């Protein structure tokens, strides 16, 4: 999948731009704070209708500005229907209203825009994916599976809404009112758990293979850690009942996929507490390779790849191996502070980003 044009207005520090994109992608050079990452963030916005960082829509607008508008035109040839599409996200600061449109027509639900523009982003913070908190791995799962599976996104949205209502009632000390939200929590939550378990069943061997492909010694293990019985909506009743005292005491919902994790190990040692820095980075890279493969399998085409200054985090040898795996056969946008920090033998147009202006 290839983006052929990007239009950006009022976004972060970026000067408004309307630019053709090479089908191979581009390398963006610039000092920190000039807007390289903002460019990638804008390009990624229409993928899920939100920021690739943990930023709100309001934060993505230019400081003190009226809001922003980002549009990506996707070339025909692949994509769900092999036709060209334009996916746009607009945010108006005064009303705090967000509009997502496909080919000029507003969609009612974000889910209806998903899949027209598919990209994977790899940020320096993702290097901590294997070693960081469970929250990061859940975000990884949710972002990937929402793109791979529309039913997952619909269920996840519903689950989060039911969970927010239920937790609000618990915070108010109203367990009976909280209980009223158990039915949607159970049906949507079961669908989320099923999606994650189905993924992890396939990802276990993919994790092993991905680590081997970047010459990481030691066998990789990936397992979904959570209450797998919750894949069945009927199992939720007894489980929530059993958790009732804990929920009331802690004033929050203590069971469900929002508490789950993906456990990673190399050579029998859990990565998070015991992995070396190098192993933890390899684990993160492997997860990103699996994300690319998962989306390719689900969508039937290669997603684009956005790499934000990731190579600097890796040693020269890991850089070379990763570049071999990643930089061919798909559209790639990558950033680096200086040209000599780009991988060798890179065959991409080089742009510079200075003070929010892309040249």
């Amino acid at each position: 999948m290839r983006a052929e044009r990007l239009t950006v207005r009022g976004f972060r520090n970026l000067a408004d731009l309307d630019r053709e994109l090479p089908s191979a992608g581009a390398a963006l050079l610039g000092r920190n704070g000039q807007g390289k990452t903002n460019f990638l963030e804008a390009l990624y916005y229409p993928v899920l209708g939100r920021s690739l960082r943990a930023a709100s829509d309001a934060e993505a607008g230019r400081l003190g500005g009226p809001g922003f508008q980002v549009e990506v035109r996707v070339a025909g040839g692949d994509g769900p229907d092999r036709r060209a599409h334009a996916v746009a996200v607009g945010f108006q600061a005064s009303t705090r209203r967000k509009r997502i449109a496909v080919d000029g027509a507003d969609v009612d639900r974000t889910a209806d825009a998903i899949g027209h523009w598919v990209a994977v982003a790899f940020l320096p913070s993702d290097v901590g994916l294997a070693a960081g908190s469970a929250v990061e791995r859940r975000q990884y799962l949710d972002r990937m599976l929402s793109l791979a599976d529309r039913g997952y996104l619909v269920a996840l949205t519903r689950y989060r809404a039911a969970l927010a209502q239920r937790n609000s009632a618990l915070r108010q000390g109203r367990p009976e009112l909280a209980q009223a939200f158990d039915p949607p929590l159970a049906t949507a939550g079961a669908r989320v758990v099923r999606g994650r378990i189905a993924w992890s069943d396939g990802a276990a061997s993919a994790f092993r293979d991905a680590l081997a492909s970047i010459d990481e010694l030691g066998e990789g293990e990936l397992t979904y850690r959570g209450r797998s019985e919750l894949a069945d909506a009927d199992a939720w009743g007894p489980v929530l009942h059993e958790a009732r005292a804990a929920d009331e005491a802690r004033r929050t919902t203590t069971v469900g996929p929002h508490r789950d994790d993906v456990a990673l190990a190399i050579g029998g040692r859990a990565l998070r507490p015991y992995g070396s820095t190098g192993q933890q980075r390899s684990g993160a890279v492997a997860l990103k390779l699996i994300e690319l493969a998962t989306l390719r399998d689900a969508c039937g085409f290669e997603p684009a790849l956005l790499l934000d200054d990731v190579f600097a985090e890796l040693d020269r040898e890991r850089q070379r191996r990763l570049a071999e795996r990643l930089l061919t056969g798909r559209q790639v946008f990558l950033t680096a502070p200086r040209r000599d920090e780009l991988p060798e033998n890179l065959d991409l147009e080089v742009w510079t980003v200075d003070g929010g202006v892309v040249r």
Partner: protein
Amino acid sequence: MSAIEELITELARLPGIGRKTAQRLTFHLLQQPAEQVGRLAAALTGVSERVRACTECGNLTEEQPCAICRDPRRDPAVLCVVEEPSAVSVVDRATEFRGRYHVLGGRLSPLDGVGPESLRIAPLLERVDRGGVREVILATNPSMEGEVTATYIQQLLAGRGLRVTRLARGLPVGGDLEYVDGVTLQHALSARQEIG
């Protein structure tokens, strides 16, 4: 604040009206003859002074009880429970329903501080317990909160010897009844399902 600013601010509070539209409306009004603007102002005052919730069903009305509750041709044994008064006219126009209504005044939403006590659920139970009601149709919006509210009420009505039904699926999830077309709504009403 200037008078113009004040009007723009008030108009911009209305649903679906942004600041730009509010400005356009304000300058449009300023170009109208004074009596035209006076009629609008009087209509606004009239609405807020004379229109009240029907003591029986919660629908908006100028008389107590409302025209629907007084209409002898409408079947008092069938109640259609909706979230907002706006849904009453929608269901009434779009479908052949000729029973009576019960307006809840919202849906369960702890995040908005709305629990069962903020809704007209107790008056619904009173109405049912007074006798003469055979069927309650739960026609809350097909949103997550709307469904939760319907299930909550359904459980309260269980064991009262009533027929309790829900609008059939096929309504767009997450929407409001107001935006559903008449054919879909009539179908959802005819194909309503037994739930208790």
